């Protein structure tokens, strides 16, 4: 049940895909059910060199200093993950002017937080928060949302620590397992706050 074959970033992308499909479809058809077919929209996804080289440095001299290179992982997976959502998807490196597609999608890493364990067998959690913005051809923001992905793996010892950290980043290789949510470790943050 806990075997996963996709990366954390891929899950973030898929999470985005599900939520964007639902929300954009809502806007188009007033239906709350996600469509099974591709959205009849052409899209550009903006993956700048800066985004693709994003690294988060966490920790201090008091604890563990770590670097999470999420950008390269994301850029490998985002284009593939979104290909099945839109009728046409084009990857661009700079802000296109004018926009050829109907929407421009821009991902942004918001934050990363990783817990530390006490022993080699303590579980560590990695949380990645990513924000997505969709703009129309006129440059107006038509949709924005934030998704959160989590990964859990053992802390590891002096020999396995680096490997385990990379597993958390990739989320799903080896014996990593998902945690928290049932939708593959990705939660739309607004889901925490039901309709009141």
């Amino acid at each position: 049940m806990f075997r996963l074959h996709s990366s954390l970033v891929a899950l973030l992308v898929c999470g985005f895909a599900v939520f964007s499909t639902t929300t954009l479809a809502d806007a188009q058809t007033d239906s709350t059910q996600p469509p099974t077919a591709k959205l009849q929209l052409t899209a550009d996804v903006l993956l700048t060199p800066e985004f693709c080289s994003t690294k988060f440095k966490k920790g201090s001299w008091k604890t563990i200093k770590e670097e999470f290179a999420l950008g390269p992982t994301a850029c490998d997976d985002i284009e593939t993950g979104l290909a099945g959502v839109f009728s046409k998807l084009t990857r661009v490196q700079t802000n296109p002017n004018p926009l050829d597609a109907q929407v421009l999608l821009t991902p942004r890493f918001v934050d990363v937080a990783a817990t530390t364990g006490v022993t080699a067998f303590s579980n560590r959690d990695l949380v990645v928060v990513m924000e997505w913005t969709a703009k129309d051809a006129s440059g107006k923001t038509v949709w924005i949302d934030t998704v959160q992905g989590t990964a859990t793996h053992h802390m590891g010892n002096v020999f396995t620590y680096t490997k385990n950290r990379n597993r958390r980043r990739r989320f799903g290789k080896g014996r990593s397992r998902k945690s928290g949510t049932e939708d593959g470790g990705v939660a739309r943050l607004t889901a925490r706050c039901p309709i009141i």
Partner: protein
Amino acid sequence: MLRACIATSGLALLVVVTAVATDDFPDYPLRAPQECAVHAAKDEIFVGAQPLENAVDQKTYFKTNVAHLGFVPVFVVIHNGSNESSFLFDKSAVSYGSASVLDTPKAKSKTGEVLGLSVIPYAGIFAAAKVMKGASQIQQNLVKKELRSTTLSPGASTCGFLYVPPVQKDGSIEGLRLRVALTRSGADQPTILELDF
């Protein structure tokens, strides 16, 4: 006998340490905007804010005294009461400032461009944490519970915490004005709601 005693003690210590390390953070109870200490409504948008200035509440939901780190957690809930329109909530457009200063026309040009809340120095919070035990869990919990940008479909709500610096010397946020902007999908001008604490 001595070996067994040491082994048992070691095992007990491991259990205690593991229990501390895996301690859960309870969710803050949900509430409607109208049930919050401060609330406002405009253009079918309802916003409520409930500051957690009480040290006991902060310990309960964050396992630390957040005020000692230089922030007051404010629970914010936003509800789209429209039956037709979606609203975009961009957290980078959230701003705050002292209400008395903002009300002064002369000073408004200077402080009216109040600070955005999108850049929260979590590293600072982490570094300032005196207690190392569980500090990374505390930091992650702060990240998880933060209010985030989202699109509110008709009838939908979003909620989360904003971490704002205290205004008063006693660590309270009395006199603070929180400004939340939401844009109706397709519109140019945002709907701005102000919450005075």
